[in-house]
């Protein structure tokens, strides 16, 4: 059903330079694609949240289940498991390719940092099967350059409510 309460998007401010953020997102995608999961977690702030909703337009991660919703402690656990040789759902390992595009800077939410919106296409190949995921990344990024960190990452999959086989590699 169409959500008629949604506001019409406004034209992004063309004077804002998205390049530092785009560079960061491309770097983040590369760390994930190449399996540098510990380095990926290190991109997050101590009190960061990582969220993959299961419903389109899901209001919060507390009253409804999510494909993934991690605080720092859980994110560390998730990633440590990925490095364990006995993670059978990753035997053989997935190979992934992420393309990040359409990067825009969104109006501030009042929270610290800059909200950056982007589109992604993720191809996952594992054991003679290729899966295609696509959707929107919303990052809230804090700091600049090498000190830039993720305070929040939300992944809106277009097929978030589809019946899916296990999701093991983070989006």
């Amino acid at each position, binding site marked *: 059903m169409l959500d008629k309460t949604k506001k019409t998007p406004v034209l992004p401010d063309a004077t804002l330079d998205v390049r530092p953020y785009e560079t960061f997102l491309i770097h983040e995608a590369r760390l994930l694609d190449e399996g540098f999961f510990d380095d990926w977690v290190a991109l997050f702030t*101590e*009190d960061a*949240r990582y969220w*993959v909703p*299961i*419903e389109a337009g*899901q209001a919060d*991660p*507390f*009253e*409804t*289940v*999510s*494909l*993934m*919703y*991690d*605080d*720092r*402690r*859980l994110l*560390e*656990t*998730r990633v*440590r*498991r990925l490095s*364990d040789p*006995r*993670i*059978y*759902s990753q*035997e053989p390992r997935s190979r992934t390719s992420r393309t990040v595009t359409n990067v825009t800077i969104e109006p501030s939410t009042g929270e610290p940092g800059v909200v950056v919106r982007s589109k992604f296409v993720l191809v996952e190949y594992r054991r003679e099967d290729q899966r295609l995921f696509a959707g929107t990344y919303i990052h809230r990024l804090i700091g600049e350059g090498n000190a830039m960190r993720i305070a929040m990452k939300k992944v809106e999959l277009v097929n978030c*409510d*589809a*019946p*899916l*086989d*296990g*999701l*093991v590699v983070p989006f």
Partner: protein
Amino acid sequence: MSITAKINPEELARMVEPARVHRRIYTDPEIFELEMSRIFGTAWVYVGHESQIKKPGEYFTARVARKPLVIVRAADGSIRALHNQCAHRGAMVVANDAGCTDEFQCCYHGWTYHLDGRLKAVPLNNGYPEDFDTKNPKTAMVQVPRVESYRGFIFLSLASEGQSFEDFLGYMKTSLDDMVDRAPDGELEVAGGVFKHTYDGNWKLYLENLCDAAHPWYTHRSSIAAAQQQKDDVFSDGTGEIAIRQMRQNGAPYSFWENQVGIWTYANGHSYLGDYHDDSKLVAALNDTTFREYHSAMEAKKGKAETQRIMEVRRWNSNFYPNMSMMSQFQQLRVIHPISVNKTVVHTYCFKLKGAPEQMFRNTISFANVVNGTGSLVLTDDLEIYNRVTLGLSSQGAEWLEIGRGFTTDEPDPHGGRKGKNSTSEVYIRNMFKAWRGYMLGDSDTGAKKQVA
């Protein structure tokens, strides 16, 4: 493989022995089709909960034996299950997952139906032959013959005759009681969305894993190690707390499983794993503020003695053969949807305990995300197992699969069932196959009363 050739009953009977089953049970499309008609087409199967249809006109769609259904609260307050097909040209009438309506109208030529499925109006109702009768119950959204509800849990049978609902549940209704009793206000509500996951494997594998106390140590090794090594002094908003405890507990040694956990089985293929968690160990740990608040709410509503009785029911997964598994301690319920012989979809629901502290439902959500969810750290390894069994069975390896662990040591249970001497007995799988034989061959006193024509 041809599915037109009819498998003969003797051949089918030979495939299930007391302590082993033939691999074809999991791989033969012809057997799968027979299961759809003889098991899913006759057994009582769970379809949903009354909290999903509180008022007349509220409905949700469901699927049983791959057939699309609409479950609706009719104008008189009764629950009806309708085959989701227009009597005119066969289009599926209801397309949304859930909603509220005064009537059902087909999008093709506008035939409309009352909430109980009777035909209400036919546009251009002229020139039909004399025997066209809008009052004919077959010219309708045809009703499923048997629908029953026990304490809010709705089950139906696609067959007009067969075992009674009461006989089907038997002693296992105490597991449904346990979930409802745990609500301080005595009521449950389905809430928090639905996980839908799928795997390339037979539907039976799923139920056969849910009371398997011998697999966590191997299958879930990666999440056990990751949780055990996790530092607790990093930032947490409480998310994952209970799930991390669960993953650590999955690493308990065999002696724990053998001595402190039990497996109980009852007629019709049902079973539960019990005494796994007592509240001081895991569920909420007695020094947990949310649990203390919950405990007080329970005592205020039900009194000390009844609260004590309820808390001492310590069941983990309760399996209702053939399509449902629920767990009262974290208020989760899974419905198994067979799609084909090697394709299954499972829907996982959460329940809110009315009158319990809000944080308790957040724990339910968090437990679901990390343990039972599609992107969880635990279930993903189970899905891999189901996929691997399918791959393994595509080989030409061992013809017979073993289900004999604990066979010589199982014991009778005072409620008419059979329990394992300890939790790692495969008694619950043997029990499922006893019911399977009942439905498929009519040669067992459990599962069905001779369903085979």
